[in-house]
């Protein structure tokens, strides 16, 4: 089934048709909408969780920043659900593709920065120079801050890609190690299997944390700029 280590990362096609579209759209099926007051447990839990996250994340913003709530909440739900679904066997995770993460990170970051530049030009430009720098250092510091600003979208995208990809690779490798060790010595294979279980737990945590971190950073960029 899997020829090499990286086979699980190729874009899934079926008979030449891109299956990846369906895979990207699939998590939205897992979040049903409901018009009822009292729902089933699934929807109730989702609504409760969404309310918790949105309150915790959007309370720091002013009303102008809070207009981004829908965007940020859908972002965290999408990244979290795609990451978690990717942990199932033989599944494809869209967030392992750098192209996709760049497509998420660059527009969001650019939106936040451009909003800041349009509405609060002075404050946005002032972010290039932290308070209390000695005068001779100013030119260099401005250059450094500019670089750090432009690296933000790259960092966002690459962070997410690298974390998820690395996790998947590790799981694959340790699974392979367990498979190879099964015929040699069963006890070592068991130890490796335990390591695999621990890693799985870690990966579940990482999946959710990465979603959170991504959204948090975007919200932070937004907070600076509104």
């Amino acid at each position, binding site marked *: *089934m*899997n020829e090499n280590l990286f086979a*699980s990362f190729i874009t899934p096609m079926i008979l030449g048709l891109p299956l990846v579209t369906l895979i990207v759209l699939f998590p939205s099926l897992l979040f049903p909408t409901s*018009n*009822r*007051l*009292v*729902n*089933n*447990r699934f929807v*109730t*839990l989702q609504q*409760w969780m969404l309310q918790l996250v949105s309150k915790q994340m959007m309370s720091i913003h002013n009303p102008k920043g809070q207009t981004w709530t829908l965007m940020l909440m859908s972002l965290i739900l999408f990244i979290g659900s795609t990451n978690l679904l990717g*942990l*199932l*066997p*033989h599944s494809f995770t869209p967030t392992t593709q750098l192209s996709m993460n760049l497509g998420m990170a660059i527009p969001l970051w650019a939106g936040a920065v451009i909003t800041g530049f349009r509405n609060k030009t002075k404050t946005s430009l002032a972010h290039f120079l932290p308070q209390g720098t000695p005068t001779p250092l100013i030119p260099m510091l401005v250059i450094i801050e500019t670089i750090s600003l432009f690296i933000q979208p790259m960092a966002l995208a690459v962070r997410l890609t690298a974390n998820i990809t690395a996790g998947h690779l590790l*799981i*694959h*490798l*340790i*699974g*392979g*190690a*367990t*498979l190879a060790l099964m015929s040699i010595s069963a006890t070592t294979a068991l130890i490796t*299997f335990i390591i*695999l*279980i621990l*890693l*799985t*737990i870690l990966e*579940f945590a990482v999946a959710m944390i990465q979603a959170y971190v991504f959204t948090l950073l975007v919200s932070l960029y937004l907070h600076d700029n509104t």
Partner: protein
Amino acid sequence: MLSRVVLSAAAAAAPSLKNAALLGPGVLQATRIFHTGQPSLAPVPPLPEHGGKVRFGLIPEEFFQFLYPKTGVTASCELQRKILKGPYVLGTGLILYLLSKEIYVITPETFSAISTIGFLVYIVKKYGASVGEFADKLNEQKIAQLEEVKQASIKQIQDAIDMEKSQQALVQKRHYLFDVQRNNIAMALEVTYRERLHRVYREVKNRLDYHISVQNMMRQKEQEHMINWVEKRVVQSISAQQEKETIAKCIADLKLLAKKAQAQPELGRQ
């Protein structure tokens, strides 16, 4: 859409119908049934209480029932008759077939699958019930909040009704108030009447007293005047001669009396 084709064909066949063809689609749309009756969004149809029963969390119970007529049961006694073993044998055979023919290859992915699925099953078995109860509690809280609002509203209205009833009861007793007021007014009128009567009496008495005192004064004045006149006449009538004689007599009398007076104290001391 086909109807439009039909209508245009009809228009081509009979040019006189062309004008009607312009109205055709509109007529067609008008006869299509939209929004008849009220939208039935409420009352919302109730949700089923429990989901469908499944085995292994994946295979619905109906599958086992479906295979019962075909596979029967391997039961040796009455109690075990209820256990449907057909699908289990099918499942086992299917898995072994896939493995032995290497249709399902054991890869590193298999181990990650075992660990992931095992982890998930463990989580669900351990925390499933408590999470479900938490969700139920959330819903109950929501309903309890609304119920509280409803109860508060009902209580408020009930209090208003009770107050209204007590007000009505009070209104029934209002005639006492009016009786008392009526009595008060009657008494006040009576008092005023008596007061006026008394004043009349006083005024009349004043005038009569005045007449009386005028009469008295007149009489007194007349008496004094008469006395003065008489005295004056008497004094006038006393001539000078008589006056001298009278004075001499008085002096003689006084001397006599003085002697008598002197003589008497001596007698008294003795």
